[in-house]
């Protein structure tokens, strides 16, 4: 740490190579485009090195860098927000005129607790989360994966808490629909 704070080039390179892969995987969760994810990691590392004097050692360096790269990825997402997002209405349940659920709701044949131990299932779930539009994926990742509260998520995304709750619920429903064929045992 003292070498980092002294601006030692070798210490910087050690941090980039040691923590870079992990930071890149976190950035990829938020940003579907590889170049955007790499740019977010670069933003994060440069910002971290510039701010290394502020690092007080109360958390681990890995935790501190993780938080910085999440912020960097969210900043990149905001830059790209001008792109129109696709609607997820077709992934949300529909209801009959009398208020009943439309269509069949099947039990999942694949046991969740067993399937999460399987690499293939985790790959399918990550791929399904990737399919969510940016604004829904960001809320889902911050609340369900990063473990942030509704108010923290609202603050970091510049939304009110009601909007965060609505987006989280819709994101979970959309993810459920995307996982349904696989978890019913109907997908290859």
């Amino acid at each position, binding site marked *: 740490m003292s070498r980092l704070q002294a601006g030692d080039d070798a210490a910087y390179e050690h941090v980039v190579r040691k923590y870079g892969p992990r930071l890149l995987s976190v950035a990829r969760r938020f940003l579907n485009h590889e170049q955007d994810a790499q740019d977010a990691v670069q933003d994060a590392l440069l910002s971290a090195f510039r701010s290394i004097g502020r690092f007080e050692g109360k958390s681990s360096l890995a935790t501190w860098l993780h938080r910085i790269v999440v912020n960097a990825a969210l900043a990149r997402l905001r830059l790209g927000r001008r792109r129109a997002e696709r609607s997820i209405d077709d992934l949300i349940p529909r209801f009959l005129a009398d208020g009943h659920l439309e269509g069949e709701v099947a039990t999942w044949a694949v046991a969740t607790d067993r399937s999460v131990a399987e690499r293939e299932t*985790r790959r399918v779930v990550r791929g399904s989360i990737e399919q969510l539009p940016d604004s829904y994926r960001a809320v889902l990742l911050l609340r369900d994966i990063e473990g942030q509260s509704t108010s923290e998520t609202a603050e970091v995304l510049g939304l009110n808490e009601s909007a965060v709750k609505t987006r989280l619920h819709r994101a979970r429903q959309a993810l459920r629909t995307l996982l349904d064929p696989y978890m019913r045992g109907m997908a290859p």
Partner: protein
Amino acid sequence: MMCREFVEFLLDYFEGNLPDDQRRPFEEHLRLCPPCVRYLETYRETVQLGRAAFASAEEDCGDDIPDELVRAVLSTLKRNDAAKSGDVAPRGDAPPA
């Protein structure tokens, strides 16, 4: 309560934020409507699957960091050009909640 309201209230129910006057009809609907029982179960499983998908270290170990990214970071540092990039570092080093 119909399925439409039941599904609408799911998030608050899971987070323990459903007021008593809504929780009672919610649970009564749950007792009477098998499709909503299955919807609730699969919604809960979806949240569990999402959390588990990133809990493993496997996704972090698959790839190395691209050399060009390492070089870009280090060369920018050497040019002392970091001030041009956005400041995304938090104040202090409190861990995320």
